[in-house]
């Protein structure tokens, strides 16, 4: 009954799609490109579903974690052996369901969205490549294979952000994302080296076993490892201080933003922390750092989201903010709550992006919300699904976001005094979230049409179906409940560390959270529907604060002044002028100059006059002759006399 799960096929099927569309894409008819691009991820999703079925249901239960490894070793140095081992456990199964499921829906959506794009096949090959790396990342049984997937999704993200590379801003955004991620990946890499140095293995289960064998080992080097891993996670998951790439990443096509920069890739940091939670559990400082990074990002991103006018940038900041919640959950060791929020967030944020994409599609590429408005009647399906997502992200009962956000806030509230502060920050962030999401809702769908030269039309069916499915998930996705999720994930992430409910604390906290969200809605309603002139008045009343937030706290400028400018100056003056022009160029010039000069001198010798050559030849022969005579008569004689002298002396003694 133990049917093989064929885990290795889950990443490799999209990879085949990448190769087929990447190599042959241009020559294939569009139908075939679409078929390859959709069916292989679908097959992958099918395999994941099959795995889920054979694990959970119908009598035939495969014990978890189910491991598969390739029959050959990857790296084998001394005592270190690293294999291509894939491990499926409860955590990776949940992630795989999200990645391949939501990923497939976004593929379907892309068929409609990218239909007229010249790079249609290239787009699908990159998208499949992303799925390959993301599933590798999630299935990896050791840190190094995870790192391969980690780097790979970074590559796919770079390629897709810069998909319209003719636009300078898109190409720059791709580079920015890649470089910001490099910094994080450097931290991750140091963490891997530290793990290798201290544990001698990179396999997750071995590390966990070694830690379990030493229950007294806390802090110290483990804190260092965790902080390095956290640096990696902040890069990939766009947390403070490496978040700067995510808003710019919105230059990519909107389905890409939905898949990579909302639902899956940016959650890799959360996944990584949950996967290595046995390390973080041993280091209170690292956990505290995770929680503070998460809470700070959640709050700051939410404030920045308040002032954006580009519909996708609002969503980008809200993604950062929601990822901050997940980090906050990880930081209070509520990993299952983090994964729960990751899941519901994947549903409603993918939906938000896809609905925004539908709006942008309808507006003919316009992303500025100030030019939208009154789209409610023209885009009914988009409006209703977007509404579900807005209510979900704001945390209204019974939408998906309510349950997961509530679980996080409750877990934070239980963590002593520090936890109360985190809870409060989370609550304020929830208020801000509701404000900026309803602001987006009002500016886009309500009021008067502010742009009259476009005629919005509802998107094609291939775009609407994913919207409706995700809409249903955004409404119902949270009904699983945190108890069931944490019970399910308990073998991986440990039991939920919530004490038995005393009184009605959780209920009151939930009611408070919903009240805060409702307050946010009311504020947005007042400012953006009933009194649209109020935001401008408020901005005029608080010019300093307004400028600070509207310019995103000048962080880009600050990084530019602290890091980019000095690096550029160093590159230009020290590396460019001194090293390149001076040393390397000088050396090359010296070599070339010597050769040229030597050539110019020796060239005179080659007169072309036959008799001069003959004369040189004769002179040379004469010189050799004289030398031979000299050696034969003079030097040979002297040598002989010396040697005979020695012989005589030897004989004399």
């Amino acid at each position, binding site marked *: 009954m133990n049917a093989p799960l064929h885990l290795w096929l889950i990443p490799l099927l999209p990879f085949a799609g990448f190769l087929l569309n990447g190599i042959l894409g241009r020559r294939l008819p569009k139908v075939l490109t679409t078929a390859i691009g959709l069916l292989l991820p679908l097959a992958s999703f099918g395999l994941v579903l099959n795995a889920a079925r054979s694990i959970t249901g119908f009598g035939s239960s495969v014990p978890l974690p189910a491991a598969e490894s390739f029959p050959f070793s990857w790296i084998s140095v001394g005592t270190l052996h690293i294999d291509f081992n894939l491990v499926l456990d409860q955590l990776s199964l949940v992630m795989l369901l999200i990645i391949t499921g939501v990923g497939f829906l976004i593929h379907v959506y892309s068929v409609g969205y990218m239909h007229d794009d010249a790079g249609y096949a290239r787009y699908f090959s990159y998208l499949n490549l992303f799925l390959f790396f993301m599933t590798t990342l999630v299935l990896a049984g050791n840190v190094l294979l995870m790192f391969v997937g980690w780097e790979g999704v970074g590559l796919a993200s770079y390629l897709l952000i810069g998909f319209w590379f003719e636009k300078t801003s898109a190409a720059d955004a791709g580079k920015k994302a890649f470089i910001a991620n490099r910094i994080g990946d450097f931290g991750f890499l140091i963490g891997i080296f530290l793990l290798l140095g201290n544990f001698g293995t990179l396999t997750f289960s071995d590390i966990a076993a070694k830690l379990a064998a030493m229950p007294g080992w806390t802090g110290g080097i483990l804190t260092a490892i965790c902080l390095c891993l956290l640096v990696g996670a902040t890069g990939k998951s766009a947390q403070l201080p490496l978040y700067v790439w995510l808003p710019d990443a919105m230059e990519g096509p909107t389905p890409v933003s939905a898949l990579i920069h909302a639902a899956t890739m940016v959650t890799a940091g959360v996944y990584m922390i949950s996967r290595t939670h046995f390390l973080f559990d041993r280091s209170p400082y690292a956990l505290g750092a995770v929680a503070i990074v998460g809470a700070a990002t959640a709050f700051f991103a939410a404030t920045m989201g308040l002032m954006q006018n580009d519909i996708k940038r609002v969503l980008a900041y809200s993604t950062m903010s929601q990822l901050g919640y997940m980090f906050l959950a990880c930081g209070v060791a509520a990993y299952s709550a983090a994964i729960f929020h990751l899941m519901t967030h994947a549903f409603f944020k993918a939906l938000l992006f896809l609905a925004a994409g539908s709006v942008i599609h309808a507006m003919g590429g316009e992303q500025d919300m100030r030019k939208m408005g009154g789209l409610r009647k023209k885009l009914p399906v988009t409006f209703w699904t977007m509404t579900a997502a807005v209510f979900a992200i704001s945390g209204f009962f019974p939408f998906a976001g309510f349950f997961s956000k509530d679980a996080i806030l409750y877990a934070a509230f239980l963590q002593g005094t520090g936890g109360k502060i985190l809870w409060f920050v989370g609550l304020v962030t929830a208020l801000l979230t509701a404000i900026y999401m309803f602001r987006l809702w009002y500016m886009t769908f309500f009021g008067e049409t502010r742009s009259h030269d476009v005629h919005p039309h509802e998107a094609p069916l291939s775009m609407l179906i994913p919207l409706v499915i995700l809409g249903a998930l955004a409404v119902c996705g949270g009904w699983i409940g945190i108890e069931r999720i944490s019970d399910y994930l308990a073998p991986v992430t440990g039991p939920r560390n919530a004490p038995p409910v005393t009184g009605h604390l959780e209920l009151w906290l939930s009611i408070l959270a919903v009240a805060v969200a409702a307050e946010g809605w009311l504020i947005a309603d007042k400012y953006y529907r009933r009194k649209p002139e109020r935001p401008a008045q408020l901005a005029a009343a608080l010019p300093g604060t307004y400028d600070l937030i509207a310019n995103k706290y000048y962080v880009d400028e600050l990084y530019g002044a602290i890091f980019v400018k000095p690096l550029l100056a160093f590159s230009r003056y020290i590396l460019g002028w001194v090293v390149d022009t001076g040393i390397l160029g000088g050396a090359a010039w010296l070599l070339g100059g010597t050769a040229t000069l030597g050539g110019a001198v020796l060239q005179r010798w080659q*007169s072309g*006059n036959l008799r001069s050559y003959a004369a040189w030849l004769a002179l040379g022969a004469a010189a050799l002759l004289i030398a031979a005579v000299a050696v034969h008569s003079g030097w040979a004689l002297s040598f002989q006399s010396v040697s005979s002298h020695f012989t005589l002396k030897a004989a004399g003694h």
Partner: protein
Amino acid sequence: MDVPLSWYLLLSAALFSLGVIGFLIKRNLITVFMSIELMLNAVNLSFVTFAHQWHAVRGQIFVFFVMTVAAAEAAVGLAIIIAIFRARNTLAVDRIDLMKL
């Protein structure tokens, strides 16, 4: 009547020097070519002398080699000279300097 070895060698050296001088000072390509032949044969003379002196056959074998090569060289050289004359209408060595940069 036994001619001493040095006489042969002196004759050989004189012929070789004549060849070198002719090679260096003559302008006509054919004369230059003949000077080369003169040098080759001067060397042949020394080979034969030493072969006779040391009763070694190797020197004489060398002479045959040199004569064979000289014959081949004469054939190729004359052909080149004719080609040069046809192309440039002159055999003055100083004016055949196309290889100069």
